[in-house]
């Protein structure tokens, strides 16, 4: 293709306009034309794109994640409060009366499974929510 090889043509097209292909023989001229067509085609974006209202979806998702973080914080504080409250009750009962403590402990013992399952259920709920939030992309979160 005369004095024009592929790298030269590409460099030349990168540098500027494709209207001065002087000094090229017929093969070179054709190569320049094909490269020029290719460069033009590469400037065309893919067909399709993000749906209309994409930014609104992003903002909705952002708000939802903020809300989820706030909820998680709230429920963590709440569960901490329940545990501290229980401990406080036991402490107060023990302090006020020597007979109160066994009664509190007996009550706790009676409802131990209820308390255990409540705490476990709460922990499971938190874990489930976190797992759903970290689920693989492309499952359903595109539907906002």
């Amino acid at each position: 293709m005369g004095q024009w090889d592929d790298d030269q043509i590409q460099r030349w097209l990168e540098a500027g306009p494709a209207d001065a292909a002087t000094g090229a023989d017929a093969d070179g001229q054709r190569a320049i034309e094909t490269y020029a067509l290719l460069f033009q085609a590469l400037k065309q974006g893919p067909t399709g794109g993000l749906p209309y209202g994409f930014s609104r979806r992003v903002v909705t998702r952002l708000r939802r994640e903020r809300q989820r973080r706030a909820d998680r914080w709230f429920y963590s504080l709440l569960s901490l409060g329940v545990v501290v409250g229980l401990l406080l009750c036991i402490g107060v009962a023990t302090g006020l009366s020597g007979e109160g403590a066994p009664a509190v402990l007996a009550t706790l013992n009676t409802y131990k499974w209820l308390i255990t399952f409540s705490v476990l259920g709460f922990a499971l709920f938190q874990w489930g929510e976190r797992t759903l939030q970290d689920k693989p992309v492309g499952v359903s979160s595109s539907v906002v």
Partner: protein
Amino acid sequence: MVDERELVNRITRGGDERAFPQLVQQYERLVYHVVHRLVSQPADAEDICQEVFLKVHKGLRGFDFAAKLSTWIARIAYRTAIDYLRKYRQQPVVDGLTDLDQFYFTQETPEQITAERDVSAYVNQLMTQLPQPYRTILSLYHLDEFSYAEIEQITGLPAGTVKSYLFRARKLLKEKLDDYLKQDR
């Protein structure tokens, strides 16, 4: 064109509800171009694009304008899409220098050739078959008009490698386009 610094300040200061959607609208095409070249499924691509903008929102406070905002966002998009591919292995992720001389395109049927008379559509179809780094680099350079240095920042590939990938991919595409045009004549 909105001033980048001003837009980022409006978002990070808070209180301006319209600032972040404006940023999303301004860069959604760029993010889509980067993600689409790596992840072909539209639903996955959209989810990844959303993920990218959540990361952008989270990281904006730490953005120091050392690079252009578009370069920084494109890097996040590229990394997020690559992480997705690594995690779910839809397509092989090629980080090293692929031997493009050994590469061949899927044989087109005459029907496909007839259907793809449009050169742009034909080139786009060929691009989908190229190995990952080539697709990304071609798109970043030609479509989004990033420089070699900026593509280096986005992909982490040295500028020399970026240039070499670009030239080799274009040579390969040109050869295919040549054949296509000969059939058309």
